[in-house]
């Protein structure tokens, strides 16, 4: 299979503009003849559904929560990047492009990333016009803060609730279209199958989570905006419902899965406190603007942090990376924390964290300023740990947070299956092997408000005059049958172990062997373990209740079954990529001082995997990455 990125030729800065001119259009009066399904109502899905509805298409929007507003984007805290250069500190579209390519360790497509940087400025305009209450200065103009991996201040924010406010903006735009009748809303509906006819995406099969009813929906195009798959690790900063089912089902139907092993471990999360732990809570990266990370110089120092003198603290990020210091990119910060904890310098009762200390900032700026900047995060920390972060440094440790991998898409955001589009965190996206902070919100909204609505007509124009496929057709009946069979199978096993038991096991295996550090032996062990866990699951899982009503165990069981298959692909990808890059750290490939060592000669490609059957190795397809404008070099944040 030849993978065509369809990235336009011509000078980098003109590509998007000239592409928009060359794309086929659908005239306004013809748009209502097209049905489009959008699965997901996060930043990507809600912005896409709203914009396509405004344009005049017939849109159906699906989500599994009880309201579109609750998509996981709502939990994003820190901010959204844009190359506005309001600080006059040397920012530009080109710099945001450059920082993103470099931050991603040279594993993203130049044309896509440049487009993202260009669109970033329009996103802020759009959101302000919708009434997103971004933080402002006394002048009434917009404020900015700094995020990791950049030496400029380009992050826009709304207290510690930026994701919430952007999500509500997109949700409200969607609500306006629901009222206008251009969008039909299906909440508490889960997509369980993609329907493909004659090689094209034709629709989806969903289960109504309240009644258990299984139905088909057909359309001219299907858009998946179903978020990331970090919950494959069980413990992550993701919401409990985040899953891979929508994209995994599409993968099984032929969509290629790109770079699954590029997972991001976020450096600043609250450490695990016990076996019952159900998720990990992020403490926003923005805290690294004012917080300083340290461990005691003496591994056996058990004194309370406040009594340890300055001279006996190791501010290791400031020591090792003086020019970026506490604001090195996430992958670098996470590995540094792991090295400290592995070497016995961990803090807290379980010695499983490092300090994030606001002492210096509080004495410099005063408590009130820190409270205004991070009040809600401090409150959340105090709620969870019972400790007061104004008085005692926070304890933090890395946790799975974001997935750069996802379904492969071309420059138009279409997968290799014609008519299937993938946007937001669900695609393999623009972040290469590591995403910079505050860039996921930017990408989700760029995809949904601006890119997809401009590119989808290229495909639709060719279908003018054709009705959308018949949802009573044989492909739909078959897909519905498969869903019913699977639901019946899960309920029929009546084994001895709960779904969570399997999910925790899967998560532990992946965290151990395919987390922050990976090596060939570990990955082979994980592959064997997950294979047998998957078999055990299908023989011994216990799902009580029936399929005709709200059954949360059944929902989880379907998701965990897909996570197990994905877990195997993750390990397969990690094993094949004999280099370290960004979030993928192969212990065999590191520089003498422990930094990631890429192999550009052999691995400067996107690994796109084709499904070959359950338990069978997937087949690799490569999209070579070409760098015309940025010369890949060893990343240095020193």
């Amino acid at each position: 299979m030849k993978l065509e990125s369809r990235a336009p030729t011509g000078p980098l800065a003109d590509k998007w503009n000239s592409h928009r001119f060359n794309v086929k259009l659908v005239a306004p009066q013809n748009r209502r003849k097209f049905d489009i399904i959008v699965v997901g109502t996060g930043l990507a899905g809600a912005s896409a559904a709203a914009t396509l509805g405004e344009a005049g298409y017939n849109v159906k929007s699906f989500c599994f929560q009880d309201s579109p507003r609750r998509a996981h984007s709502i939990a994003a805290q820190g901010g959204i990047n844009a190359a506005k250069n309001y600080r006059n500190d040397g920012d530009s579209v080109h710099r945001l492009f450059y920082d993103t390519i470099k931050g991603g360790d040279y594993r993203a497509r130049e044309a896509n990333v440049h487009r993202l940087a260009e669109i970033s400025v329009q996103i802020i305009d759009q959101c302000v016009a919708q009434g997103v209450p971004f933080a402002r200065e006394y002048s009434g103009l917009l404020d900015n803060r700094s995020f990791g991996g950049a030496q400029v201040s380009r992050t826009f924010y709304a207290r510690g609730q930026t994701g919430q406010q952007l999500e509500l903006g997109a949700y409200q735009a969607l609500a306006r279209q629901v009222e206008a009748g251009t969008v039909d809303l299906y909440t508490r509906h889960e997509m369980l199958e993609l329907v493909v006819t004659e090689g094209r995406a034709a629709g989806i099969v969903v289960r109504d989570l309240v009644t258990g009813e299984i139905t088909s929906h057909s359309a001219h195009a299907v858009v998946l905006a179903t978020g990331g798959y970090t919950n494959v690790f069980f413990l992550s900063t993701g919401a409990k419902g985040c899953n891979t089912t929508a994209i995994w089902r599409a993968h099984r139907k032929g969509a290629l899965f790109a770079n699954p092993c590029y997972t991001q471990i976020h450096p600043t999360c609250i450490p695990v406190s016990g076996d019952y732990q159900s998720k990990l809570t992020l403490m926003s990266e923005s805290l690294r603007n004012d917080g300083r990370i340290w461990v005691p110089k003496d591994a056996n120092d058990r004194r309370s942090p406040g009594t340890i003198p300055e001279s006996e603290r190791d501010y290791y990020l400031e020591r090792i990376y003086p020019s970026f210091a506490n604001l090195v990119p996430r992958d670098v910060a996470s590995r540094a924390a792991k090295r400290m904890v592995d070497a016995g310098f961990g803090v807290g009762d379980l010695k499983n964290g490092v300090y994030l200390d606001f002492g210096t900032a509080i004495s410099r700026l005063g408590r009130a300023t820190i409270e205004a900047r991070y009040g809600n995060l401090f409150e959340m920390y105090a709620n969870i740990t019972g400790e007061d972060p104004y008085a005692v440094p926070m304890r933090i440790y890395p946790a799975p947070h974001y997935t750069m991998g996802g379904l492969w898409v071309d420059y138009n955001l279409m997968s290799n299956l014609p008519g299937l589009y993938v946007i937001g965190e669900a695609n393999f996206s623009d972040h290469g092997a590591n995403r910079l902070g505050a860039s996921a919100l930017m990408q989700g909204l760029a995809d949904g408000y601006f890119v997809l609505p401009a590119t989808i007509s290229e495909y639709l124009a060719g279908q003018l005059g054709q009705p959308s496929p018949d949802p009573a057709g044989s492909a739909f009946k078959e897909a519905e049958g498969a869903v019913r069979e699977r639901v019946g199978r899960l309920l029929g096993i009546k084994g001895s172990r709960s779904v969570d038991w399997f999910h925790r096991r899967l998560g532990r295996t992946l965290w151990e062997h395919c987390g922050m550090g990976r090596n060939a032996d570990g990955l082979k062990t994980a592959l064997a373990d997950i294979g047998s866990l998957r078999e055990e699951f299908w023989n011994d899982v216990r799902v009580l209740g029936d399929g005709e009503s709200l059954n949360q165990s059944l929902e989880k069981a379907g998701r965990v079954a897909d996570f197990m298959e994905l877990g195997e692909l993750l390990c397969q990808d990690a094993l094949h990529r004999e280099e370290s890059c960004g979030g993928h750290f192969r212990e065999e490939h590191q520089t003498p001082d422990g930094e990631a060592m890429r192999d550009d000669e052999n691995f400067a490609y996107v690994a796109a995997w084709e499904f070959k059957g359950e338990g069978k190795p997937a087949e690799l397809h490569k999209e070579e990455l070409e760098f015309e404008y940025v010369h890949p070099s060893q990343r240095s944040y020193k």
Partner: protein
Amino acid sequence: MKLTLRVWRQKGPSDEGRFETYDVPDANEHMSFLEMLDVVNESLIADNHDPIAFDHDCREGICGMCGIVINGRPHGPKKHTTTCQLHMRNFSDGDEITVEPWRANAFPVVKDLVVNRSAFDRIIEAGGYVSAATGSAPEANSLPVPKADADLAMDAAACIGCGACVAACPNGAAQLFTSAKVGHLGLLPQGQAERWSRVVAMVERMEEFFGSCTNYGECEQACPKGISVNFIARMNREYLKAKFKDGRKLARGALGDE
């Protein structure tokens, strides 16, 4: 710690429902309330009993999905805290805890502790937005917003739509929820063009589903985000003002500010 739970179990919307009692032999103070329920559910499953259904997603106090009445109080005893962020250190060994769903006419029970809150979406659909079509926006800094207005708008916009305000209200009214959105958008210059038509449309849609407000103020007490009842007063004033305005212009949704 050892706890006894009295939990509302209801198979479906038409089932009558009843309390059932469960012993929790070893809850830990670092658990969240929902993690404690996870542990109960694991033991129910082990005994072949249907686990307790409850809504949740982010478990970070922001998505608004969780919501349980704990000992008679929506989201439990701790102020400004959602159920998912409530930790067991707020309880004591030997406590008996009553666990119920939101009780409100507009929020019918789906199962156990899960209710249907879609009436909230209907209120937003009636007008809880600025009609700024994608692509039509002016440069973001072209319209400065006084910091005080932006901050107050943000206080209102912090609403997570969980429904605790309705569950706490003896009348099952949704004034706090509705006024938070009216306040958020009405305080910003971007929200002015539709300011009057918005408040009328949202209030009237709200009244189709919810009871009326008689100023008990329980909503503010229950709100995990501390949204102030001042927004209700503000909404009432705006609604009256809008009603006195030119009815024909209002019908066209184009009253504008004066």
